[in-house]
């Protein structure tokens, strides 16, 4: 085993990649076969020699052996071939460069159209820029300075011969003085350009010669990158690239034959153009001036460029994005009884996913038991890996044999068990908190279970959301996941330095009720606390009725002091681990604000905080279970006098609006600077109506003295804002579109049930009724309009913000803090001398800073 370990961990690392252009010589040198016939298979279905599927180019059929390297399917990576083109053709991707080369060099002597002295100077300049290793600067310099002087010269400064205009006729034809230049001529001209002059074009003779841009031989990609599929009918369906290459070879052969037979020039030229077309579309089938090459079904072929570019292309889809094994995905559902950092995994999943465990002297017997149970009984094992890397499936038949074979050095892939490490993820993964490390809890049923408190960072709910689970397979990966990605370590957002995880919904409502007025009988309090997981009940006061604040205090550490405010700006005081006054609501338990949570985190660390949140959640839920909690329509009932008041307010504002409209018609309205009178009117009406709606909200607030379910939720901040309450009980208010009242629809009116030119609130989307009273048809329709508008907003926003995010991520991805505390990019260019000007990590700060006030209070108050 020690020998194996050594050989196993010798890593080869790619240090750098160099890009270049293939010369015809290299193409021939790296090719292992010359392709001469467009035929693919013979009658037996065996690949033809010299065909496109030649077995020297790699194998894609099981059973065949590669004639170049001798290996079988999946072992042979494939080898390039080549074809000799009967006549040279232009490479589409270099069309513009070839034009520049032709224009800027003399048609007679091939020298660059620059006086000698200037040329020398530019060459030195370019050399200097290149030394800085800045290719982009060099390209910009060439484009803006050098080429400008070389293009459009009419006389060669060296041999004094006249130069002609060279134009491109897209896509691949060049015209010199309206006369066509053949690729052969072009190639001879390009050959004349000296190596020393190439830097002036932003090229490097070490890697490219201009004449290589006109193709004389074409490399044939290995069969392995264009595998054919065998259909059920036994028919073979070839890859798009193979089709295209077939076209090229066929035309190329025809061209050869015609040239050898001495066919008329017209025929040869036609074939030549056709060859050019096929080679062009082989590289890129999406060129504006060319009709794309199509399948017989009419669907365009996917050739090389299409394979590489765009989101589904090789680069973004296969290279920058990877696929993974040892993962699973299913629907999620809530379970408040499991810990924050746990994830409930169904047994079926636990029996499919495995953790590799190395067999040693000390755990041999332990692991053998897993193998003995086999793959079908939990907890068992699915595979055993031998030291030489061979993987063996554990089956009932093989079991005995494997059990005997197992010895230190073997690896057993055993089923998941409680406490194993997993990475849990929900898309879209916009955060680092969208992928966190959880401990596995194997549970019955078929969904992943998670604590509802961790919904927030994942942005998950349980209306059918699915999430992914990954099992790290190496010790390093597990260690890293545990240290860096555990839920506890992610409590404080790196975005703004406050808690992202807090109690939600019932967890908050329950604690609100508990700490506000509830007194629990002693036995109830104790059974709730035991269920929550509080063992130390010594802090509870004596007596039969225990105040809710005392019950809550058992969760707090004994030396915890805190002074803050709750949601209604009332003081919250915690002294020596006892909640003395104040109510526990979102301001202290919730995410985002959660000031008390932040303090607990600072003082007692992440582990304790995660535990605290889970316990507080459970406490709230148990209190609600004990106390009962429900909402009903009655919750938002208002006494008649409140209704009356609301109506008065609305009537009054309607009158005010009428006065405004009247003034507008009489042109008495004083306009705002820079606004027309109509715009001023709109603004004033909007203001008056919004004021009225806010006032109704205040009245609702005033009269909702009874603590009903709905009101508790809104007061504690567990669900719903006061606005929602006001809309249910008081008045829904103005429906706004594009920052104004609804104004579009019919001519001069929003709906046909209104008079033309009607400017009253009701005609422009003011909803006077509350949701409980019910909406009139026109009000309902207005509501539908804004509802649709906001739906569109979301639909249009997602891709826009997604693109912004992608751009940001791409621009900033390689910035990191160096050991000297500077922030630098990949080429070690300094971006910031000190991260964020003070070097503080947001996720370790308290809302971006150190809480100086707290420290002073702590020390000075001692």
């Amino acid at each position, binding site marked *: 085993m020690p020998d194996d370990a050594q050989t196993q961990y010798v890593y080869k690392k*790619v*240090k*750098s*990649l*160099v*890009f*270049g252009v293939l010369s015809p010589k290299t193409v021939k040198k790296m090719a292992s076969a010359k392709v001469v016939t467009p035929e693919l298979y013979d009658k037996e279905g065996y690949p033809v020699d010299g065909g496109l599927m030649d077995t020297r180019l790699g194998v894609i059929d099981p059973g065949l052996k590669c004639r170049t390297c001798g290996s079988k399917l999946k072992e042979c990576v494939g080898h390039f071939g080549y074809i000799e083109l009967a006549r040279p053709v232009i490479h589409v*991707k270099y069309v513009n460069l070839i034009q520049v080369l032709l224009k800027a060099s003399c048609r007679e002597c091939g020298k660059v159209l620059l006086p000698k002295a200037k040329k020398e100077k530019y060459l030195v300049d370019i050399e200097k820029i290149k030394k800085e290793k800045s290719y982009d600067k*060099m390209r910009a310099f060439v484009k803006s300075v050098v080429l400008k002087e070389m293009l459009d010269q009419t006389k060669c400064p060296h041999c004094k011969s006249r130069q002609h205009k060279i134009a491109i006729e897209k896509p691949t034809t060049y015209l010199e003085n309206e006369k066509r230049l053949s690729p052969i001529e072009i190639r001879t001209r390009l050959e004349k350009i000296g190596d020393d002059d190439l830097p002036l074009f932003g*090229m490097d003779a070490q890697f*490219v010669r201009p004449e290589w841009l006109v193709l004389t031989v074409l490399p044939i990609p290995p069969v392995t990158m264009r595998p054919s599929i065998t259909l059920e009918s036994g028919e073979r369906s070839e890859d798009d690239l193979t089709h295209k290459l077939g076209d090229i070879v066929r035309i190329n052969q025809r061209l050869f034959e015609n040239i050898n037979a001495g066919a008329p020039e017209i025929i040869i030229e036609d074939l030549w153009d056709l060859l050019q077309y096929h080679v062009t579309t082989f590289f890129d089938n999406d060129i504006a001036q060319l009709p794309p090459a199509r399948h017989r079904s009419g669907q365009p072929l996917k050739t090389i460029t299409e394979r*590489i*570019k765009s989101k589904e292309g090789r*680069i973004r889809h296969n*290279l*920058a994005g990877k696929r993974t094994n040892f993962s699973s995905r299913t629907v999620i559902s809530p379970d408040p009884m499991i810990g924050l950092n746990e994830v409930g995994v169904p047994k079926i999943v636990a029996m499919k996913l495995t953790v590799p465990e190395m067999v040693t002297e000390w755990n041999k017997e332990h692991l053998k038991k897993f193998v003995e149970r086999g793959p079908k009984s939990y907890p068992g094992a699915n595979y055993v890996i031998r030291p030489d890397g061979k993987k063996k499936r554990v089956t009932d038949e093989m079991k005995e044999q494997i059990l005997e074979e197992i010895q230190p050095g073997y690896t057993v892939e055993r089923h998941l068990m409680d406490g194993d490490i997993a990475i849990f993820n929900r898309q879209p993964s916009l955060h680092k908190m969208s992928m966190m490390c959880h401990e596995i809890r194997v549970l019955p049923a078929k969904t992943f279970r998670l604590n509802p408190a961790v919904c927030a960072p994942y942005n998950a709910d349980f209306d059918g959301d699915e999430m992914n689970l990954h099992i790290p397979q190496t010790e390093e990966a597990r260690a890293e996941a545990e240290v*860096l990605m555990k839920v506890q370590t992610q409590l404080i*957002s790196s*975005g*703004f330095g*406050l808690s992202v995880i807090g109690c939600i919904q019932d967890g908050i409502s329950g604690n609100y009720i508990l700490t506000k007025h509830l007194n629990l009988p002693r036995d109830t309090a104790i059974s709730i606390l035991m269920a929550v997981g509080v063992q130390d009940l010594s802090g509870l006061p004596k007596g039969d009725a225990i105040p809710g604040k005392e019950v809550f205090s058992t969760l707090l550490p004994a030396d915890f002091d805190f002074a803050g405010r709750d949601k209604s700006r009332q003081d919250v005081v915690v002294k020596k681990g006892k909640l003395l006054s104040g109510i526990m609501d979102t301001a202290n338990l919730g995410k*985002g604000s959660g000031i008390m949570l932040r303090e607990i985190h600072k003082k007692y660390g992440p582990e304790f905080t995660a535990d605290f949140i889970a316990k507080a959640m459970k406490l709230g839920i148990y209190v609600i279970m004990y106390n009962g909690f429900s909402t009903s329509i009655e919750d938002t009932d208002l006494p008649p006098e409140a209704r009356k008041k609301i109506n008065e307010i609305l009537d009054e504002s309607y009158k005010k609006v009428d006065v405004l409209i009247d003034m507008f018609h009489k042109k008495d309205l004083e306009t*705002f600077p*820079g606004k027309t009178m109509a715009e001023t009117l709109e*603004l*004033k009406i909007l*203001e008056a109506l919004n004021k009225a709606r806010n006032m109704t909200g205040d009245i609702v607030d005033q009269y909702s003295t009874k603590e009903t379910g709905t009101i508790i939720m809104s007061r504690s901040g567990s669900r719903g804002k006061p606005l929602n309450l006001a809309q249910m009980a008081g008045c829904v208010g103005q429906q706004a579109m594009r*920052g104004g009242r609804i104004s579009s629809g019919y001519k001069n009116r929003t709906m046909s049930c209104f008079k033309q030119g009607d400017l009253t609130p009701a005609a422009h989307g003011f909803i006077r009724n509350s949701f409980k009273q019910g909406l009139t048809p026109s009000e309902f329709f207005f509501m539908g309009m804004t509802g649709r508008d906001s739906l569109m*907003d979301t639909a249009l926003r*997602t891709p*826009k*913000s997604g693109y*912004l995010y992608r*751009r*940001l*991520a*791409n*621009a*900033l*991805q*390689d*910035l*990191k803090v160096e050991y000297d505390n500077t*922030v630098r*990019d*990949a080429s070690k*260019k300094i*971006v910031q001398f000190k*991260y*964020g000007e*003070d070097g*503080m*990590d947001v996720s*370790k700060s308290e809302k*971006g*800073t*150190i809480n100086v006030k707290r420290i*002073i209070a702590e*020390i*000075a108050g001692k």
Partner: protein
Amino acid sequence: MEDLFKSYEGKIPDSLLEKVKEHLPPKIDRKKAEEILERVYQEFTNACVDPGESVGLIAAESIGEQGTQMTLNTFHYAGVAEMNVTVGLPRLIEILDGRKNISTPMMEIYLAAPYNKGKDIKQIALSIKENKLKDIASEFSINVAELIVEVALDEQKVNAIGIDMAKVKKAVEKALKDFNIKTKDNIISIRSSKDDGLNELYKLKEKIKEIHISGIKDVYQVLPVRRGDEFIIITAGSNLKAAFDNEYVDPIRTTTNNVCEVSDVLGIEAARQSIINEVFKVIENQGLNIDKRHMMIVADMMCNSGSIKGVTRYGVVSQKASVLAKASFETPIKHIISAALVGEEDKLNSVVENVMLNQAVPVGTGLPGLITKIKK
């Protein structure tokens, strides 16, 4: 006490030191003060970033994630009498694109000492607003017989902006060269010195409507607003350079929301701050919360080359050294082809290239290596 603070300078960032000074109870003994400072220092050291932390990506995540929660509504009236400004996601995109022409340029003009108290604030505001010839003219006509364009000025409007006929004439003369310009009463007649046809005359008529007469160019709307205990002028349309020439204007506090303009007038450092401020305004306005450090890193990246580069394939991304990193963003073929011509070398220093090659990325825990002797 002062020397105590002095000894912590450089150990604790100035902003924190200031805060300690501010909140320290006045009658505190030295020992406790020292204890406090030591504690602040300790907490600060604990809160420092670790080397290798991928701060750029965290910044991108923080901004990108919050971006999904922004509204798309372009226009927004902050108050009833406020001006129309682009807000939300479109504004954020605009700033990060580093656009030269933004959709709603705006200035906040602070006034120098005697003028900011509110006296004559309307007059000052109006003098800042740009007036074009069409704003003070009552009629533009063409005299076909003599090939003259005649502009009848509205005297009331001319007086309202505090100038006279002579000044108008001067302004017109300045804008039009090779023309004969005469004034009679309140009519300006313009005749071409060249032999232009009627068509040219019609073009001229349209052209002279846009002649700048007074005020700050490009400022098409002004709004005096009270801010704190002084008055400021908010303008629609922005021209910082011209605003600074004005004697009323306090050039130190006056700003524009056009980042590129700030860069041109005040330099790149100011532009960096301006990007941070503008992004912060958008975030704040949307009721979101992002730490300033993230905006700083974006701004630093955009300004790092000395001129403003947008977060686009032509801006920040194009400055990367790695071919593969550029190719993985947009237009991969273009990058690969131009790299081939010079034999460009990709040193695989950044993140994506190593992801592509299945190698450890050089950030975070991928950064350090471990060297150990293997017993033979």
